[in-house]
């Protein structure tokens, strides 16, 4: 039976290694500088790139962070400071539940409020959907990070005559800043690859567009469209796009892992 647990460990790590191997093998051959600088080409023409999708993903991440980070950090501060109020318990529980909701459901929510009444898809709606997914993630990691800050620091600041809000922001929050930034990065990595909520919100765009009221291209959407197409050139592009996406996500995840470990001794999920 002990041997079986070894086998389970090998089987469980195998898919990751296989996926990375295939991404490297198939993606690297079609990846070139023009992938980052050129627009998608029509079917039948080799080459071209996903410049618009890469920029689109960055724009979406920007909007999502502008919504998700301040609200998430604010809520995390509340949870860390008012640990035992009824609201704190509710928020903690609902954050966890929200984290588990299918991303496509969040997409429907953004569509109902921001696409349907306006009548067209937009980058803004996509950013709101992704931002809504970030809020519970950032809330929970911020709370965890703030809890690690020793109470003596807070007491020292209060004893020096700092007001409570100054203490919270310039002493407690600052001490935990590295950890909170790491949590924010993990949240960004998580939403960067999201596709389902963008189907009804950002929608994708074959052309260059950075307007917030216009439909916008996104790397995951482009990978999806190309992967299910019947064209070989597009499949190549999809692998290249996936390699770029996974590289971004893995770099962030690994960096976050080492940053938290060196600082607090134990990794924080």
């Amino acid at each position, binding site marked *: 039976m002990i041997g079986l647990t070894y086998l389970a460990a090998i089987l469980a790590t195998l898919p990751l290694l296989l996926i990375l191997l295939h991404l490297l093998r198939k993606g690297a051959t079609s990846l070139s500088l023009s992938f980052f600088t050129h627009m998608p080409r029509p079917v039948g023409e080799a080459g071209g790139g996903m410049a618009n999708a890469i920029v689109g993903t960055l724009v979406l991440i920007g909007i999502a962070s502008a919504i998700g980070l301040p609200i998430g950090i604010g809520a995390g501060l509340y949870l860390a400071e008012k640990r035992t109020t009824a609201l704190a318990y509710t928020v903690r529980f609902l954050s966890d539940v929200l984290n588990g909701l299918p991303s*496509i459901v969040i997409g429907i929510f953004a569509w109902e409020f921001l696409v349907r009444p306006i009548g067209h898809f937009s980058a803004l709606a996509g950013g709101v959907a992704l931002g809504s997914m970030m809020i519970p993630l950032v809330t929970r990691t911020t709370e965890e990070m703030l809890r690690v800050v020793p109470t003596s620091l807070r007491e020292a600041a209060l004893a020096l005559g700092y007001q409570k809000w100054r203490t919270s922001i310039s002493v407690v929050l600052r001490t935990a800043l590295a950890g909170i930034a790491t949590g924010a990065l993990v949240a960004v990595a998580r939403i960067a690859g999201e596709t389902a909520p963008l189907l009804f919100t950002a929608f994708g765009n074959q052309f260059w567009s950075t307007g917030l009221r216009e439909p916008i291209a996104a790397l995951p959407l482009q990978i999806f469209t190309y992967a299910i197409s019947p064209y070989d050139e597009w499949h190549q592009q999809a692998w290249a796009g996936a390699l770029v996406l996974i590289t971004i996500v893995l770099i962030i995840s690994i960096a976050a892992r080492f940053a938290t470990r060196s600082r607090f001794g134990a990794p924080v999920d």
Partner: protein
Amino acid sequence: MTAVSAHWLDKDRRKLRVEEFSIGDRIYELVTAACALVVPALVVSIAVAIFAAAWPAFAKLGLSIVTSSSWDVAGGSFGAAPALFGTLVSSAVALIIATPLAIGVAIFLSEFSPAWLRQPVGFLVDLLAAIPSVVYGLWGIFVLIPLLREQVMPFPRDTLHLGATPLFRGPAYGPSMLAAGVILAIMALPYISAVSREVLMAVPRSQREAALALGATRWEMIRDAVIPYARSGIIGGIMLGLGRALGETMAVTMVIGNRPEISASLFAPGYTMASLIANEFSEATNDLHLSALMAVGAVLFVITLIVNAIARWLVWSVSRSRAK
């Protein structure tokens, strides 16, 4: 700006000293509380948005949305039973594959792993959760499906001669319930194993030592002393993985074949609620069609909400009983 009322004074004397709010403190508290309130507001808005959008379909079609299996856009009948069936079955297949593996890894990491392997293996398994769904789908289409079609599917049919049993009947095209189940198993695995590892690690030393002192082998100790102690936490982890699998959209849409039929065969293509919404949304021709898709979303929302709430409650109940 002192805001000390007689009521507070009675209730909590300690508060008297520090209850001198400055304007800054007031604003700070209001702002953080407002941020915290966004979370429940978000949950409520999501529920309102989905049920408002789904209402016309529920009013017109009633429960036939989940009970009927005829999805005919032109004829105006929207029965998503095959999608509901596909969601449940693909998730069940995923859990059957992922649960033993995930618990095995968790036991390996918490009990047997050499210290130098613990961090890297744990990290690699956790990384599975970081891979975007669309990348799983891409890998599924071009690597997993050919592998299943050529290596795995012929095995029960040709070697074991089970081709006549309902489970393995029919031609093996590749895109199938099995492919969806395998992809979902890989995606749910890190969630189940992370929670299981955490609750296993939290089982007190005394529990293990008592079992060993009674003469148990290491395996008997795990089976009889450690796992029972961690059981409800592990079940919570499995429910969490189930929640992921039920709502997963892109990867499943790319490998399940998207055919709205109920078939007992694992080799047959199927459909899930999430992939039904993802596929038909942009082509929705009329209001009823759109609303029917939203109704499917509402059903998915309710199912995942319940599964997640139970999962969180189970995991919490373990950590709370430990804290006492």
